[in-house]
């Protein structure tokens, strides 16, 4: 239930099907709703992968919304935008508390927070990543220099090592982890695509139960050399429904315009046309690979 501490001894171990005896269906479920059906309960903590709208488990989030489960604590770097991603769960008032590093794109979130309707723990992005990594790795707490001397460190132990001060941060273990992967095999081995990797491999380790949606379910096992998340971390697997992925800041160069001298596109509001929150072009459809 709590977001702090290590993984407790398993008192509710669910029988796991074995991929070796059932290679086609081992961890597989037909869809997100079925996979989450017996896992959701009011007041639970859910860790969710993604950065902005990139790499979010959109089907699983929608299934959580449709389930009507309430009083959730959500651990996620961002909370989507209005009407998309985790923003859906805010609209339906299913979330009581969030742990996030940046929520600047969500007006509803800002309003709820300023009105005091939503409890927010702002966690520095790197600290959030490490808290998930630590929780998944059985490490209850760790020291970091991030946030020392800021509101983030208030109320937490501070220790000096080699002349520098560090704040103690807790690992996070969530009741449920929701992950979006690019490819998955029947063993639950996962790969990710480009920067859609972000928090997903960490979230995958930090759930008491981890449910993954994958764009491509491969019949053949993945090459062991390319696996990013080994299947041991994955409990349930569903095919991601084909959908057009959202782009928050579409920034492009006009064709034929000085291609050779284009500078790297580093961060925020720089050059390039920007059309916010528009849908991207079609992406490769999900489903089983032949």
């Amino acid at each position, binding site marked *: 239930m709590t977001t702090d501490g290590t993984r407790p001894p398993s008192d509710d171990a669910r029988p796991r099907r074995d991929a070796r005896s059932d290679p086609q269906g081992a961890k597989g479920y037909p869809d997100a709703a079925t996979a989450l059906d017996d896992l959701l309960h009011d007041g639970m903590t859910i860790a969710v992968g993604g*950065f*902005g709208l*990139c790499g979010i488990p959109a089907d699983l989030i929608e299934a959580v919304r449709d389930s009507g489960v309430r009083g959730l604590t959500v651990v996620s*770097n961002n909370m989507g935008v209005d009407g998309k991603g985790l923003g859906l769960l805010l609209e339906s008032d299913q979330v009581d508390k969030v742990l*996030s*590093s*940046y929520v*600047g794109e969500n007006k509803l*979130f800002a309003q709820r*927070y*300023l009105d005091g309707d939503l409890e927010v723990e*702002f966690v*520095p*992005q*790197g*600290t*959030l*990543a*490490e808290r998930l990594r630590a929780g998944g790795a059985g490490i209850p707490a760790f020291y*970091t*220099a*991030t*946030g*020392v*001397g*800021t509101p*983030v460190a208030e109320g937490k132990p501070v220790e000096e090592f080699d002349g520098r001060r560090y704040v103690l941060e807790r690992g996070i273990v969530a009741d449920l982890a929701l992950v979006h992967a690019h490819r998955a095999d029947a063993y639950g081995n996962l790969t990710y695509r*480009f*920067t*859609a*990797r*972000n*928090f*997903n*491999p960490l979230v995958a380790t930090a759930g008491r139960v981890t449910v993954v949606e994958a764009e491509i379910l491969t019949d053949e096992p993945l090459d062991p050399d390319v696996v*990013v998340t080994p299947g041991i971390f994955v409990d349930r697997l569903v095919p991601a429904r084909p959908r057009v*992925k959202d*782009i*928050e*800041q*579409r*920034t*492009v*160069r*006009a*064709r034929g315009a000085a*291609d050779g001298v*284009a*500078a*790297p*596109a*580093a*961060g*925020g*509001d*720089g*050059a390039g046309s*920007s059309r916010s929150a528009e849908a991207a*072009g079609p*992406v490769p459809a999900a489903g089983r690979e032949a």
Partner: protein
Amino acid sequence: MPWDRDEMAAIAAAELHDGDYVNLGIGIPTLVANHLPPGVSITLQSENGMLGIGPFPLDGEEDADLINAGKQTVTALPGASYFDSATSFAMIRGGHVDIAILGALEVSETGDLANWTVPGKLVKGMGGAMDLVAGTPRIVVLMDHVARDGSPKLRHACGLPLTGQGVVDRIITDRAVFDVVDLGPGAAGADATGLRRGLVLRAVAPGVTLDEVRDATEATYVVGLAVPDAPAGATTRTPTRAGHQEEA
């Protein structure tokens, strides 16, 4: 006349070295990549999980799975890599990224930075900024000299919640360039460890007078103009903190 955004970015870019790994924040810092000195090639790190950011994609080639920390669609250069967020911040917190260039709401005369929230008004969050300032050997701030209401952003102490304490090494505004330096043990106002960080005014924009800078700055500083009338970025990096990687 004050420097414009591109001139400010050029000043920041002038201190970059060939081979540097660089993290650029949202806003004016983005423009730094457009003003690299000749012969200087850098690798941009994006905290969402990428090294080797290339230009924006050609119209029609954008990909929702390939974005920078500002959530903009980007491309990958040859030699690029993708990694998870814990690895990304291992680079940042571990001091492997050479320099970060960020925006700010306020900076104090001892190098404190505030750039993530205005209580009761602005709900944003710190994103990766607290990790960046805690772990990156050199922090450069690009910001307007005064806020929209004309109030100074360079202050004795930050009034807003901090992003980091004593973390800023250089401030480049539209009117001036300041370095935060160790004034040495025993200096007035020294803290318990005997250290006292303070501001040195290094350069002033063309046509801006020292008096005008003084009037628009709450923070205390000394004047130590490095190269009058030259781009402030032409000055070399000043080692200001233990662990700072300085070229010979």
